């Protein structure tokens, strides 16, 4: 197992204490638990709090988007595992500034059920108004008629950005929720995996791929995709992802932002090679790119592979996308 770590069991607490020590002006933990991370200035009075949560091993997702113009807090689970109800509850309570809290996270069973329980607890014990928006952007994970069953992948970053901007501007809980839903209604993603990653506590890959194989549509925890086959060219891979995305949402004549995301090991160089093809496909379909986001936004540790996310824009979404946002892992200035 080619990892730089000490005791596998301490992987998450060690990385979180390193992270909190690295960014004390930006982040703090609450409830005496390093898994409960909020902005250093939380709670911000009068501002809607936005909370996410999910497993570790996806940096910058999830906690990397806790920052100004982004999220207020994050409950952090073990690698690829849900945080607990208590952790979600503590984060929710710590970011509540009197204007309510939005729970905005990926559509994974454990997270969904635990956030529901945490929202109940916050309502019961602290009278905090909590709204919930699930991210379910991965078109490979279910057909359109079961879109509610899809898993959440890199598209969540756009949801964080849009909701975070609205909240920073003073939007109400209903407005922040509506903008998050509006963003997600216009967002679709799909990925490809070239090699697996290794869970520190397990020590071996949870799936294998032959030396010349790839899996189109695979999820960010190695969930099955739509087709396993021989590794194809960058153009063919890009086409496979875009074909499915563009069949799911009508982009003709639209203005979009597109995110090319490395799952970890795949270098940025390869994302730019894919971007060439994205542009020529878009050109043919009359789609224009308002602004691309190319980098590592939602990873699976050292997995090789990439995903494409498209968000169809209108004036509201453009303005919110342009709003300043900064965290120790993301600065929107880089993409403007």
């Amino acid at each position, binding site marked *: 197992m080619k990892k730089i770590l000490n005791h596998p069991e301490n992987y998450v607490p060690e990385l979180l204490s390193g992270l909190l020590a690295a960014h004390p002006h930006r982040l703090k933990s609450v409830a005496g638990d390093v898994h409960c991370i909020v902005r250093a200035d939380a709670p911000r009075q009068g501002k809607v709090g936005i909370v996410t949560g999910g497993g570790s091993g996806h940096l910058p997702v999830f906690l990397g988007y806790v920052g100004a113009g982004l999220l207020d807090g994050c409950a952090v*689970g073990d690698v*690829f*595992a849900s945080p607990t109800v208590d952790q979600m509850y503590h984060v929710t309570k710590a970011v509540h500034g009197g204007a309510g809290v939005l729970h905005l996270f990926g559509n994974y*069973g*454990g997270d969904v059920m635990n956030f529901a329980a945490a929202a109940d607890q916050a309502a019961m014990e602290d009278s905090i108004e909590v709204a919930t928006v699930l991210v379910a952007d991965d078109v490979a994970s279910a057909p359109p008629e079961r879109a509610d069953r899809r898993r959440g992948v890199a598209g969540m970053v756009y949801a964080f950005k849009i909701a975070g901007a609205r909240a920073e501007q003073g939007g109400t809980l209903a407005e922040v929720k509506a903008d998050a839903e509006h963003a997600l209604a216009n967002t679709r993603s799909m990925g490809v995996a070239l090699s697996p990653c290794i869970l520190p506590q*397990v020590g071996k890959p949870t799936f294998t791929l032959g030396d010349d194989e790839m899996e189109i549509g695979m999820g960010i925890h190695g969930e099955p995709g739509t087709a396993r086959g021989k590794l194809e060219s960058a153009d063919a891979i890009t086409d496979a992802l875009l074909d499915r995305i563009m069949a799911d949402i009508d982009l003709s004549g639209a203005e979009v932002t597109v995110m090319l995301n490395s799952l970890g090991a795949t270098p940025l160089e390869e994302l730019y090679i894919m971007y060439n093809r994205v542009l020529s496909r878009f050109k043919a379909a009359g789609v224009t790119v308002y602004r691309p986001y190319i980098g590592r936004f939602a990873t699976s540790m050292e997995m090789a592979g990439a995903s494409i996310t498209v968000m169809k824009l209108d004036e509201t979404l453009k303005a919110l996308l342009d709003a300043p946002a900064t965290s120790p892992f993301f600065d929107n200035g880089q993409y403007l």
Partner: protein
Amino acid sequence: MDKLSFEQTIAVLGAVADGLIASKDELTALDAALGDGDLGRTVERGFKAISDALQTNEEADLGKLLFKLGKVFGDAAASSFGALFGTALRKGGMALKGKTELTAADIADGMQAALDALIELGKAKIGDKTMLDAIHPAIQAIRACESTDVGACLRAAADAAQAGAEQTKTMQSMIGRASWQGERSIGQMDAGARAIALMLDAAARKVMSDGP
């Protein structure tokens, strides 16, 4: 025997915990085939926490004890199974509040309350290829059990749960991670259903080994 005493119930819970921890690799393999392969770890963490809590238990009400163990399980292993099974234990405990010993009918009542809670929380239906497909036939088997012997009825429940788990091989997964496999899920046994069958088997063995 037609009732499990308080001590016997504690011993049975301990045996279930040990049995599931011992089966973690099998559960990991089943979950890896359809999901993300963490069920063994979930079960190990959750039942280890239950074992520890049983060592230091001071609660005399079996319902309240189960309720507490539900929270312990969910906190220790916050996965889908952890959230669901933790809730099941809590709701089963609420249905058994006040009890200090259990008949077979009590067990069926607790399991029915748990099943209802699972359906409400998880939104799955019978036949969606989940642990429900082991729990549901197990309840029916206890209700149909003509003996008053708890051990015999638990044996029937365990066998029905295992038959239900086997039956999941024919189903297509409709919910949770495994549903992303679509038709590819057919042919594989659901990991959560197998976990339920293993729990009831461990319980039945423990009761039978303690004699009638």
